[in-house]
């Protein structure tokens, strides 16, 4: 496919000590997709996505980003195309102010000072960081600090964002903000890969789910298909969101036509049937 931005071909990764973390992974992610990568800890999901920005190189097989083999490419080169937002923003933030944090990435990429300022201001607006710009990142509460982590990658203008557990430990308000930002990133043309356990994020925001278990990709399908697969959900210990589970139970009982992934669709589906 012409617009595949990430391609993994028979990707294997073995860590020192013969620890097999990933095997036979074949995957294509198209530009502009929002993809969720899920699985329990130790299933290989972090190993998989760390190949996308060159933090890891294949033990066997190939990873191509925008058609270029990551073997032989340096992390700095890959960082122009793929931005990695860590689960813990403390692993990523080190400047004295939010502004400086936002400027660091593009300056490192050799972007002109004029454009750095432009990108910084765009990021402050996009992530609504106006009141935080001169604060030290560690003076900011955890939920907003996480947004600063995302914003500092945003100023590097990568084509692909990898978000590691973007909503874990966040309250409902920040979680909703993150959902909105992910959709906006896609609207601006970015590809977003979310490593996530947040089932509502997976049900309502992503286009496609890649499920890993025991170092293998065991499913790669649309959320409706993944959440409908009882066996798959049980074998990976994943619990569908409440509406998905409810619609499935009603469907099994012959009372509802199919799975729904969000409350408003389920309300619409029920309203017609209950109204009769």
């Amino acid at each position, binding site marked *: 496919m012409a617009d595949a931005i990430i391609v993994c071909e028979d990707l294997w990764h073995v860590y020192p000590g013969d620890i097999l973390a990933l095997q036979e992974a074949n995957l294509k992610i198209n530009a502009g997709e929002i993809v969720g990568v899920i699985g*329990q*800890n*130790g299933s290989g999901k972090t190993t998989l996505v760390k190949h996308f920005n060159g933090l890891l190189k294949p033990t066997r097989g190939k990873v191509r980003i925008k058609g270029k083999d990551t073997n032989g490419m340096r992390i700095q080169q890959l960082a122009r195309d793929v931005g990695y937002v860590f689960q813990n923003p403390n692993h990523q933030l080190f400047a004295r102010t939010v502004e400086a944090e936002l400027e660091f990435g593009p300056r490192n990429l050799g972007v002109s000072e004029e454009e750095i300022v432009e990108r910084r201001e765009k990021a402050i607006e996009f992530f609504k960081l106006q009141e935080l710009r001169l604060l030290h990142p560690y003076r900011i*509460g*955890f*939920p907003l600090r996480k947004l600063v982590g995302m914003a500092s990658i945003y100023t590097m203008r990568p084509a692909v964002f990898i978000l590691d557990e973007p909503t*874990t*430990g*966040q*309250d*409902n*308000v*920040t979680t909703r903000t993150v959902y909105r930002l992910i959709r906006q990133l896609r609207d601006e043309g970015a590809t977003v890969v979310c490593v996530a*356990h947040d089932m509502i994020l997976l049900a309502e925001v992503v286009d496609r789910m890649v499920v890993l278990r025991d170092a293998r990709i065991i499913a790669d399908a649309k959320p409706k298909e993944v959440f409908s697969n009882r066996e798959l959900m049980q074998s990976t*210990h*994943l*619990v569908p*969101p*409440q*509406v998905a*589970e*409810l619609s499935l*139970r*009603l469907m099994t*009982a012959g*009372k*509802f036509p199919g799975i729904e992934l969000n*409350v*408003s669709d*389920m*309300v619409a589906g*029920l*309203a017609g*049937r*209950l*109204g009769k």
Partner: protein
Amino acid sequence: MDNAKPVIEIENLSFTYSTADKPALKNISLTIYEGEYVALLGLNGAGKTTLQLCLNAVIPNMIVGEKEGTVKTMGMDTEEYPPRELAKVIGLVFDNPEFQLSQMSVAEEIALGLENLGVPTEEMHKIIKDSLEAVGLSGMELRSPFELSGGQQQRLSIASALAMQPHILVMDEPTSNVDPIGKEEVFAVAAKLNKENKITVIMAEHEVEVMAAYADRIIVMNDGEVVFNGTPVEVFSNVELLEKIGLRVPQVTELAHLLKEKHNIKLADQYPVTIDQAEKILKQRL
């Protein structure tokens, strides 16, 4: 709860951290009874953790600030009894297990608190064994805490708290750093300790669907105040008021609410809060 014994009695509690200019807790009055499973909900910064730290006397004994009102845990005023004394009746489990694990082995991790209390060695072995059994970690005594999975580490934190044989277990977002298997494990252990061992559980959580299924009572905090306090059905029925302060309700409750508000369809006298309740009602209606 007329006959039940109060284990936590809070009267007009306010607290302002010495580093802050506005209060973290404002005039809270609250009673929690023996054997209850209480969920504490609220946005980050609403005051949940501060309230929990008042229960075992870390506030006001170890964290400085201005405190008004009284907190009694198992009848002991936290102004008069230090955290060391209260540790015998109330255990705290935090969101990140790595913050509280420090020892070389699982057994030593649990022994730590007991040694501080001067428990004799033979008795200590039995307590360690029983505590590990209660959280499903039997036989792991010699493992390093840092080799355990997130869910196991969090269950070890619970076992360490249990070793002190507390009446009350306070948990601050205990599943926010563990994967889905770990979440299931932690919730299951907390529910078992509550049902079988009659331990009072006070848990701060963001997972409203899970809390609706497990908790007897939901306490909602906003900006340092208790704004709702009741059964899951009583509290989650306030869909719009909760949304106003940034909280969501279980999806099935939202579903029933939207059917009523937008389509004038009333599912039942009360909104469902768990999936089983919603399934039962809808199977009858469809």
